[in-house]
């Protein structure tokens, strides 16, 4: 079962990564497809981040006592100002620890 899972997830993941790179030629992409692609990273990254921050224990937690919400707002400002993954991570984690200590204290 474990080895079937490993093999299966590996095949699925690689097949999807390879999909278009392996088959579609650049000049055959329609302008509307290229237009849609422009918005993929913004839409996908936001769709990954928001539940990570706002879903706690399988419920939406949109209130100032959610430490991850406050830390994420701080990290967003840091990311905007510094444009740096490193500083966003460091600042976001410090913000999380400070807020957790404050709320828990």
């Amino acid at each position, binding site marked *: 079962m474990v080895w079937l899972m490993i093999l299966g997830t590996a095949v699925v993941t690689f097949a999807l990564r390879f999909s278009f790179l392996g088959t579609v030629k650049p000049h055959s992409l329609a302008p509307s497809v290229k237009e849609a692609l422009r918005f993929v990273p913004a839409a996908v990254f*936001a769709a990954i981040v928001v539940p990570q921050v706002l879903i706690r224990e399988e419920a939406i937690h949109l209130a100032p006592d959610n430490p991850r919400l406050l830390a994420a707002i701080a990290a967003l400002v840091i990311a905007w100002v510094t444009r740096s993954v490193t500083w966003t991570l460091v600042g976001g984690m410090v913000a999380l620890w400070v807020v957790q200590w404050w709320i828990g204290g």
Partner: protein
Amino acid sequence: MDSPRERFFAGVRAQAPPLIGIVPFGLVTGVASIAAGLTPFETLAMSIACFSGVVQLVSVQLHAAGAPLAVILATAAVLSLRLVMYSVGLTPWLGSLPLRWKLAVAYVLTDNAYALAVVDFRHHPDRGNKHWFLIGTGAISWTVWQISVLVGIFVGAQVPASWGLDFTFALTFLALLVAVVPDRASAFAAIVGGGAALAAYFLPLKLGLVTAALAGIAAGMAWHALEKKWSG
């Protein structure tokens, strides 16, 4: 200037800052895999075979919860759908490469690598050897990822959960998000994508992420179309 060597190390340098996010994410993945009942060897084998933190982390959690294989594979496919989008996104630049290079680039294609490559390729559209940039990002992130998972397997369980190391996952994507929002249409795509992800979170089979991503893309296109209409 555009030699394979120069492009390879440009990729390595670009990938260096995000490594700080890969390390804790790898630790968390190693810990979760062992907690789910995988042996250290199975955990490392899965990490090399998949090379996708999101797929590894969610799959072993489903496995631990007793989910059937079909559900695990369906979830892995849905989580990896964004990789199809990346694959499409790189095709204009890399679609004419020989097969062996496409296989290599596909194997090391990650969120980080895609975000970095898109920025580099857009700023320097006429540079050659673009695939070597991705081989560079892939070489360093693959090595650091596997070491981090190994450390997670053997010592990660001693890190207290209250440190919230798993939050680094969200922070990494937050930093990537800010980097890919150059205009209002993209910002609108992000707002709708994020909001829809929350609304659709409780859809079965983790379909919420895909639904939200498609909603965000549609929103961005709609905004762009309206902007053109108003200005024209």
